[in-house]
């Protein structure tokens, strides 16, 4: 019997969908595991939300200044993180591709990473007077970049030669190799470095927003509270910030770290 063209397309799509069948029990297990993860995330969000609401209500913190400032600082840290991440990947891949360049640059980077980024503040403020946002971004990115860069370089040093050879003999070359092989292989190192870098970024942004006159930011808000002697409100604000950062770690970084553990190679 002749199968209509559209019907054969549907059948093909169904075949593709079930090309790699999951056992029903495995699928059920995967679903229940996902449901548990989502439920746990919602639980933490609710608990965190209640805690923040209670602190704000009891202390009398200005909700707009606190949450607006937090979101502004979150945005700055996120932009700086993305810049540092891209730069780290490009630098790490470039220098490890050439042993001579690596031998020259690694000791230099090692010295630079111990140099406090705040020490550059006077120079940056003078040279970028009209753009306080840019000053903060540069200081932040310079702080975040080192843990990510060194973690990626460490990951590249520990790569398994057999995996490299498998990628080569099965045809992974050029840019495509970076996308389908190198980056997935390095993902555990990228996530580990990112967690450290992200934490250091939050340490720096509070100070940076205190030093540079920005319109809004959590550091700026804490500065106002501190300068006006409102110590109780300041303590409450720090408490709220700690809860929010804990939630980001719990809901984003830790699940990501768990997921990429499956990417790690066994020796």
């Amino acid at each position, binding site marked *: 019997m002749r199968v209509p063209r559209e019907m054969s397309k549907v059948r093909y799509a169904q075949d593709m969908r079930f090309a*790699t069948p999951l056992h029903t029990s495995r699928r059920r297990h995967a679903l229940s595991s996902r449901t548990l993860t989502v439920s746990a995330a919602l639980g933490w969000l609710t608990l965190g939300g209640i805690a923040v609401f209670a602190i704000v209500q009891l202390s009398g913190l200005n909700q707009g200044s606190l949450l607006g400032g937090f979101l502004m600082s979150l945005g700055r840290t996120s932009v700086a993180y993305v810049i540092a991440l891209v730069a780290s990947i490009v630098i790490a891949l470039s220098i490890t591709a050439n042993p001579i360049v690596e031998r020259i640059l690694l000791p230099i980077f090692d010295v630079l990473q111990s140099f406090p980024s705040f020490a550059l503040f006077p120079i940056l403020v003078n040279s970028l007077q009209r753009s306080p946002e840019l000053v903060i971004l540069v200081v932040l990115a310079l702080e975040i970049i080192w843990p990510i860069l060194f973690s990626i370089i460490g990951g590249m040093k520990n790569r398994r030669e057999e*995996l490299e050879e498998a990628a080569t003999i099965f045809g992974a070359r050029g840019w495509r190799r970076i996308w389908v092989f190198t980056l*997935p*292989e390095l*993902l555990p190192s990228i996530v580990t470095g990112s967690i450290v870098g992200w934490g250091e970024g939050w340490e720096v942004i509070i100070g940076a927003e205190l030093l540079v006159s920005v319109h809004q930011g959590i550091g700026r808000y804490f500065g106002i509270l501190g300068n006006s002697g409102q110590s109780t409100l300041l303590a409450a604000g720090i408490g709220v910030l700690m809860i929010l950062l804990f939630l980001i770690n719990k809901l984003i970084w830790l699940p990501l770290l768990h997921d990429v553990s499956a990417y790690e190679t066994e020796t």
Partner: protein
Amino acid sequence: MSTSGFLTAHQITKRFAGADTLALHDVNLTVESGEFCCIIGPSGCGKSTFLRILSGLAPTTSGRVNRPDEHKLAMVFQNFALFPWLTVYDNVAFGLRMRGVSHAEIHERVSTQLAQLGLADVSQQHPKELSGGMRQRVGIARALVIEPTILFLDEPFSALDAFTADTLRKELLDIWEKTHVTIVMVTHLVEEAVELADRIVVFSPKPGTIQEIVPNHLKRPRVKRSPGFYKAVDELTAQIVLPTA
């Protein structure tokens, strides 16, 4: 030496950077199309290095290798070398995707290969979830799915238990008898070489060089408990030179 073979290595010499001694010295070998060739020798004699030179994965210090279509070479690795972030299906499909094969063809070829090697039920699992034997099946499927002209195997059964290794050896023989793909396999087990190979290349160490090439005239299927098999194993074992301290 004849240079008319399917795969030829001519006066291969290899010295690793900073090493005093040569890893390989003046190695010549011709492998014919459809041949099953085993390379044996003690640890450190350079047989794996030579395999990588033959496959194009490692450069020579001097000498040259003539091999057919570079896009049709595949390798099975000692420790499987599966990509841990990919499922079994995606690991097997990797080589085809890199070669720009259409989705429909990838689906058809990968599904067939998985079914042939008994991997269909685990196609969505990750390598971490599989036993050693199943991982090596995935490694073999990944290599065979590209329909290679030459299949290189680097001690493919040495990380497996004896029973699994024996089963996979038989499956490899079945595959070779059906496809007649040219196979070059490194092993340190004399019995394995005698069971599988048409010709056995005996390497000696320091520097790594071919000591002898032994044709294997035992009729297939080979019975491991036959007097002829024992004799071949004994003769070959006597030729292997162990490295001096």
